């Protein structure tokens, strides 16, 4: 009863792969955008901020549709990726990772931005007077001090990615073994007669995953806070 079937293991592995790929690929951009929003002012900053936050407020299906239009095989970005790099996202697990990354991005940026804003900027000035270039100040002072926010943001986005449904099913469909992540599989089982048992088992896995992610987040955040001297 407690053992997972090969099918369930496959679904779980795919979900984790999609969620991990999405946070790993989006983290550098999120740090960049968060730093930019926290520290720079430029014309159009409010608009930029709004665009970053759009996935948080738009129906996920709309985001998925937008991704389909832009990153589909004939879409303006998708066709270029295909021609230049041979990368196809539509109806692939990588596309599911992109959808998860986009949906989790605002959460990640928010958490990192808040922790960068909490850093005493005079520490960075002090580092400059000690001989550190801007890039080294960012690496040796800003990043370590923002670590609690980076950890929180990563885990939030990871959890969001695990649960991603609407954008994923719209963009990359529901292909078993390729794009059928855990929420999509649960949905599929509820749509076939007699699938409730399987749906329940997968739902319980989802609960366990979420609890583990939350606990890990709590533990890591506390650890990184201590390391950041707060």
């Amino acid at each position: 009863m407690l053992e997972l079937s090969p099918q369930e293991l496959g679904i779980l592995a795919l979900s984790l792969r999609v969620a991990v790929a999405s946070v790993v690929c989006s983290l550098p951009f999120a740090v960049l955008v968060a730093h930019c929003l926290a520290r720079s002012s430029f014309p159009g900053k409010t608009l930029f901020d709004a665009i970053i936050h759009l996935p948080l407020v738009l129906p996920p299906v709309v985001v998925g549709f937008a991704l389909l239009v832009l990153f589909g095989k004939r879409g303006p970005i998708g066709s270029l990726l295909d021609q230049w790099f041979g990368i196809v996202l539509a109806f692939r697990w990588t596309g599911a990772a992109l959808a998860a990354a986009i949906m989790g991005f605002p959460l990640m940026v928010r958490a990192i931005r808040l922790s960068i804003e909490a850093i005493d900027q005079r520490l960075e000035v002090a580092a400059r007077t000690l001989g550190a270039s801007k890039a080294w100040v960012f690496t040796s002072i800003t990043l370590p001090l923002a670590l609690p926010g980076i950890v929180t943001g990563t885990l939030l986005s990871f959890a969001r990615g695990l649960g991603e449904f609407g954008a994923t099913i719209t963009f990359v469909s529901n292909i078993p073994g390729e794009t059928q992540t855990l929420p999509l599989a649960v949905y599929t089982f509820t749509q076939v007669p007699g699938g409730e048992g399987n749906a329940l088992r997968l739902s319980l896995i989802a609960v366990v995953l979420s609890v583990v992610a939350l606990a890990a987040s709590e533990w890591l955040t506390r650890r990184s806070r201590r390391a950041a001297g707060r």
Partner: protein
Amino acid sequence: MIEVDIERHLGAFHLDVRFEVEAPIVGLFGRSGSGKTSVVNAIAGIVRPSRGTIVVNEVCLFDSGKGIDVAPEKRRIGYVFQDALLFPHMDVEANLVYGQRLRAPGDRVIAQEHVVDLLGLRTLLRRKPPTLSGGEKQRVAIGRALLAQPRILLMDEPLASLDGARRMEILAYIERLRDDLRIPIVYVTHSVAEITRLADRIVVLSNGKSAAFGAIGEVKDRLDFEGAAEGFEAASIVEARVAAHDGDDGLSTLAFDGGELVVPGVDLAVGERARVRILARDVSLSIHRPAGISVLNVLRAHVESVSESGDPVVDVRLAVGRATLVARITRRSARELGIASGQALYALVKAASLDSRGGAEA
């Protein structure tokens, strides 16, 4: 040698500062809001002046005309901030070597071991900044700035967040730096006691303008009369030498050009230099040599000038030998005694505090 000639406009505040000084410790003095921090920030490269030049030890750091603006990390200006600003995620040792590691090995003249011993940091190396006391933090901050191998050291009110005992401790450390490492220090403060104890030359700022600069005695006397430095309690500085100690009464006699001053025992050897600060309110005047009074110090003096102001008190500038004293008396006393320039009289000094080694009240 520090040459500063800058202007900076920020909203309604105009900074227009010009001075050239060379000294082991230069005091940058002024009330809060007078622009002191803006000046040191400009020297460090943290803020950019609208116009002007900054030259430190013959190296041009900023010249708006020639388009020179050296990045702060390339200026090699050590900066000790008011509240230490240690990096909270690093232990004391990592803080200390942060700047040292960024300098080429050939430039590392000031050695880590030396700084650790000089500032008494040996037992703190493994501690994290949040666990340090205010004084300890400030010592680490000084060490960190020194190990970045600066050309000069800027200290922006380094004692502001410390209590009395810690202040004396850090002051003693700063004097050690001056004597031991020979790094010129620019010391920013609004405390007369700190500046007269430490500084050899001072620059006085008032409302964003450099009101005066030069040797401390000259500048202070002049400013007391011009009233340019409000908050500067009218006082005079007398350079003296220890002439004798009277162990029985616990007193020391200091000799200077205009006579002798008896003060509570000082821990200086006979013949050593002592800088004495005498507040204008501690000096009384008498036309005749007074007899039967408790004041020990009675000096022959000539009136040089009397300040003109509408206040109920006036400052009388006195020549005592080649030294200058200022007496603050009421306008009525001045009138009744008929005090006028050139007049010979006696100055009664109620208290003199020793500036170069703590404060001894007479």
